């Protein structure tokens, strides 16, 4: 069961996975109990010509119990889930890694501010469908779209956020392990939807620094050239 979800590699990922499994056990338990009762009643009370069904219109106590119990369980579940939601959506941790990702048909443009520290300037490092981040550091992303709605999906990070034209949407994650992971688009964005496929490489901090220095060196003179060099 634990290998259903792809390997988790972000700080809040395990919290989301835990909630997934809590819901799974909760619904799995309810599933087994209700389906078992259904099956048992169906077999136990199957038609017998000499039997008469029990004449009853219900039971108010039972009715109250099976209204209140699920309601309480679901409210508790909501309250439990709220903090995970807040962590993902309502925090914006301080970070040295601030990226701008712009989606378009059918490409993820990943932009690192250059030496001036500001995005959208001439010295930006621009990659396409390729993203490099350090492990153990919060990564802040401003997500934009040029044309239609896309959805920035990092399965291993448990991150999914629509990129909406006209809006800049902040998202963040912090990777907990190094390696290559996949970037996908989760919102139908046209005929090339399935090709919006990229690679996220999580480096150790030193590796990342080296990579960034190299990238900035080659980006500085001709940012447009760097953009077209990215693997499509």
């Amino acid at each position, binding site marked *: 069961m634990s290998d259903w979800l792809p390997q988790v590699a972000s700080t809040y990922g395990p919290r989301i996975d835990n909630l997934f499994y809590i819901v799974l056990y909760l619904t799995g338990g309810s599933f087994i109990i209700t389906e078992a009762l259904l099956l048992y009643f169906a077999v136990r*009370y199957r038609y017998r010509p000499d039997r008469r069904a029990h004449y009853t219109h219900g039971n108010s106590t039972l009715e109250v119990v099976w209204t209140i119990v699920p309601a309480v369980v679901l409210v508790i579940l909501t309250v439990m889930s709220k903090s995970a939601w807040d962590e993902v959506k309502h925090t914006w941790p301080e970070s040295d890694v601030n990226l701008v990702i712009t989606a378009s048909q059918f490409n993820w443009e990943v932009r690192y501010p250059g030496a001036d520290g500001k995005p959208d300037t001439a010295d930006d490092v621009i990659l396409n469908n390729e993203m490099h981040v350090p492990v153990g550091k919060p990564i802040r992303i401003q997500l934009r779209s040029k044309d239609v709605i896309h959805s920035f999906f990092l399965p291993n990070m448990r991150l999914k956020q629509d990129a909406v034209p006209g809006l800049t949407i902040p998202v963040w994650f912090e990777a907990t392990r190094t390696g290559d992971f996949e970037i996908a688009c989760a919102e139908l964005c046209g005929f090339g939807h399935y090709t919006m496929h990229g690679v996220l490489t999580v480096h150790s901090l030193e590796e990342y620094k080296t990579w960034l220095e190299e990238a900035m060196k080659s980006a500085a003179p001709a940012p447009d050239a760097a953009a077209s060099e990215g693997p499509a």
Partner: protein
Amino acid sequence: MSHAAAATHDHAAAHDHGPTSFWTKYIFSQDHKIIGIQFMLMSFLFMILGGFLAMMVRWQLAYPDSAVPMASLFPKGVLEEGHITPPVYNQLFTMHGTIMIFFVIIPMLTGAFGNYLIPLMIGARDMAFPKLNMLSYWVFIPAGIIMLYSFFVPQGPAAAGWTNYPPLSYDPQWTGVGKGQTLWLVALLISGTSSIMGSLNYITTIVNMRAPGMSFFRLPLSIWALFVTAILQMMATPVLASALGMLLLDKTLGTHFFAPTGGGQVILWQHVFWFYSHPAVYIMILPAMGFASDVIATFARKPIFGYKAMAYSMMGIAGLGFIVWGHHMFQSGMNPTLGTAFMMSTMLIAVPSAIKTFNWLGTIWRGNIQFTTAMLNGLAFVAMFIIGGLSGIFMANAPVDLYIHDTYFIVAHLHYVLFGGSMFGIFAAVYYWFPKMFGRRMNEAVGKIHFTLTFIFYNMTFFPMHFIGAGGMMRRIYDPTQYEFLKKWQPMNVFISHSAFMLGASQLIFMALFVYSMFKGKKADRNPWHANSLEWVADSPPPHGNFDQIPTVHRGPYEYSSPETKEDYYPQNAPSALPAGAPARVH
């Protein structure tokens, strides 16, 4: 004597306006029963198309690199060297969803059964507005024709998903589809108009035309369900219409409701669309819940457990249904503070569903269950709705939804509700009311074969989708094998597709049985299932005007195995079986 005279008069009244020519009787009919059957047959035709599109989708997902079998049979230009192309793939699932939702499930539940059952079950001769009723069908037809026509315009039909999110749906440069996308909007606007007409008629009829003694709490749950559904439909459909209208203006007259370049809001569409489409989900399940309740009570030979709780929970679902739409938008870019509120309301809507499930279980508990085909489908409805309902809790949970949103987990969930729920409900209703509709029986043995195959292949098709969804496989992708992390699920995709083909093939049995039984089935008498509600009082099939005389209602519809009677059923219109003066025990 006066009673007999009234009856004669009534009888005459029932027949004196019956149409005689073929055209007025079967085509431009104002008879709710004919209109219901018209909706039903049309929905079945659309179901063949919708099912076929699904088979194509499954072929592509299982064998992304292989040519479609019998490719030469397809019209020119649809396939490229026998292969489904990415743009065509998008059209396939877009039109599959659109057709199944708007042209199969909704018209089947509300158009077909709503029309057929409401007057009969409340003891009326027809709908309140028969002409409006006819109009609602004949407005629906052009909607269907336009939707079909869109397959034949250049670049083909819509390809932006059944949710039709702008800007993708907005500008032909994004989808590669021109007119098809516009026709989609026009067709749905028209079919929405038909829905609004129908729902007004249903509400008016149920409120005003119940037989003497038929109080609201003596209505069968099918009628309660159709009543609540009609209210939902009347309130939600105009909102969809406004969304469609705005997008149509954007597309044709250059307004900018949804275009960010002109100051529009992309997410506005999602709010307005889901404000309709979430209630629409309940439009697609509530009537099936009602039908399943009637079928289950009848064949368990027991009163519905917690009748009032069943009615109230449907109202609860309808009410809450209007404040949960945001759960489709947890990652849309909507203000995240709203996420918590929508998570809470969505969790709570599971409560009335749970109540209903427990009450169905309570209904079969200590029953005397007859496993007719209708009952098997009714029980399957409950069993599958449990799964669809429970899997909904995953996506109600906002943080979990962040991960599973737009994956096959959602596809699994929605098919458990719409196929496992609505379709098994529809099958139960068809097998149950067929003798009334056509005066003939469907063969039980063949029906059970159809049920068994459907049940098995249905689960083999949709249950594994939970796994590949949890594995992260996105919806609406043309080729999952492009992704490393999805490679391990490909054998399961193949398995799912094979199951889907078998599921599709199993429906041929149903179609054959349905058509055969219409003409050649064994003759049915008035009340073949020994059921209580008023439709079984009428002849099979009921004549124009339904009843020989309007029945008087003495009790609720679920008095099965009542101690007052020797028989295990007690029709709503039967005079009291107790000696005069004895205290009645019925509710």
